[in-house]
């Protein structure tokens, strides 16, 4: 078996073992941390499709993450107050059903990905980075200045949204939902990487001219990749809002974009499980170093610097190094 496959399996096993242990040891906070890892990893899996496979350095994925969060917040707050979102052209009421919320999140994120992609993908390199950042910041300031849903203060949702047949207030059950979605996204990404679409996207990252010369429409290819990426990160945002039962413009800020990017880079750009490894390390560092110093990010920064300078494949890449020699 390839080393990377074994590392991936070990990571997934740990993601199951730790919450199970915490469940029997009666440590709900640890389960919540594992849930946070699963959700942030999901956001990273989304970005990894655009950034890792497609080479689209989006510095605005907080836009999708935040849109997912606000979709959840807006739907749930209307359900709480029994006031419909709109009456015309059809009656649209709020919802506290996760499945409904996810459905709307997918539509909203896909639409945002489409619009941002149509405009930003006309550029590349540093211009694309700046445009994606600009779109994220536009939404951020819009959320701050829009009072209807809490504005700068954010918005609390008092009861976690429901999932048919499950008690989402039970930490281990909510973890199971998030982890299942993560697994689904990972499975999809795995298939995508080996698919004709993945092959073309991967080639277009290395040489767009090569891809176009054999008849691949690179713009459309990247647009679809960005939309898929947006949907996955958007779903993560909806889950994150459910985890905290709170949304705020912070979810849309460029710092959030940066954090999602840090998961991907720490874990290994373009590696299937990179975002999971990165998000797990991020949360572990936060828990271990956080109590020691409130400036723990400086250690994160140092680590990121080391990865970028000496270990381009991130954690997964460094651990799986021997694969390259074997193949």
């Amino acid at each position, binding site marked *: 078996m390839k080393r990377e496959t074994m590392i991936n399996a070990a990571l997934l096993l740990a993601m199951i073992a730790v919450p199970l242990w915490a469940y029997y040891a009666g440590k709900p906070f640890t389960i919540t941390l594992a849930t946070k890892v699963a959700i942030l990893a999901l956001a990273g899996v989304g970005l990894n499709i655009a950034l890792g496979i497609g080479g689209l350095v989006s510095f605005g994925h907080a836009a999708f993450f935040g849109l997912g969060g606000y979709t959840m917040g807006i739907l749930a707050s209307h359900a709480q107050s029994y006031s419909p979102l709109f009456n015309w052209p059809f009656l649209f009421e709020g919802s506290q059903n996760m499945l409904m919320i996810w459905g709307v999140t997918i539509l909203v994120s896909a639409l945002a990905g489409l619009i941002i992609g149509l405009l930003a993908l006309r550029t590349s390199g540093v211009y694309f980075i700046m445009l994606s950042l600009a779109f994220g910041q536009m939404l951020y300031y819009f959320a701050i200045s829009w009072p209807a849903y809490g504005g700068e203060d954010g918005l609390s949702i008092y009861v976690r949204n429901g999932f048919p047949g499950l008690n989402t207030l039970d930490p281990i059950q909510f973890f199971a939902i998030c982890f299942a979605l993560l697994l689904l996204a990972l499975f999809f990404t795995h*298939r995508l990487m080996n698919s004709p679409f993945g092959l073309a996207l*991967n080639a277009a990252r290395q040489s767009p001219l090569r891809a*176009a010369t054999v008849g691949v429409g690179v713009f459309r290819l990247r647009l679809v990749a960005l939309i898929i990426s947006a949907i996955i990160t958007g779903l993560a945002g909806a889950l994150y809002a459910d985890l905290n039962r709170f949304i705020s413009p912070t979810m849309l800020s460029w710092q959030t974009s940066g954090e999602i990017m840090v998961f991907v880079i720490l874990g290994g750009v373009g590696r299937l499980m990179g975002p999971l490894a990165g998000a797990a390390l991020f949360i572990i560092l936060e828990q271990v170093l956080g109590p020691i110093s409130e400036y723990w990010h400086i250690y994160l920064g140092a680590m990121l610097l080391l990865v970028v300078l000496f270990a381009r494949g991130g954690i997964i890449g460094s651990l799986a190094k021997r694969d390259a020699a074997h193949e």
Partner: protein
Amino acid sequence: MNNPVLRLENIQKSFGALVASDNISLDLRAGEIHALIGPNGAGKSTLIQQIAGSLAPDHGRISLLGQDISKAGLSQRARLGLARTFQISELALEDSVLQNVLLGVIGASGRVFRFFRNALKDQDNITQANTALSRVGLLEVAQKPVSTLSHGQRRQLEIAIALTLKPKVLLLDEPMAGLGGSGSKALMPLLETLKSEAPILLVEHDMDAVFALADRISVLVYGKLIATGSVAEIRANREVRTAYLGDEA
């Protein structure tokens, strides 16, 4: 059958004051190798780019099998069968040789937007890719990353990828550059057989190869086509001799 496969009419392209293509008209007939020669900076690569669709001419018309393709984009022209190789290899270096060729098969088929099928296990596509690879003699290195290939192998790979497009026309931009004498000789029989499948517009600096291979030659100097004719006609052309060939010819 005497209609040209590819026809350029009055192609004009300027970069500021520099005229890179000055009213160029040219055709490529079925079964021929048409060599395009000229000194460095004559505008050969600019012309190839305009034919392939990565650069738009200011004026003029390009047609493929009688169909006007002037407005078609790069990838659209590729799907119509306009295949091209690059002067400096354009390949996905991290991917395997097979993956690079499969990209051509997938691109040509227009079935790019498939998210679940495993591209590396699709027997139909792999058979097509392997056929192309064996024609250029790269089947043995199919699983190797392109980054480990020699310069010459990369040039062969470019041709293999072009073949997967089921080309109607081959645009080969200096396929022999950097191959050395023996490498060029090895490539020549392949080009000889390819021309019956798709006519070749060949940009090449290696004059021995051009005179051996070409059915017709066009000479480009400072963006202007100064002569088109058979090998003998071009060799005898006084204007060409002073502009390009020098005394050695």
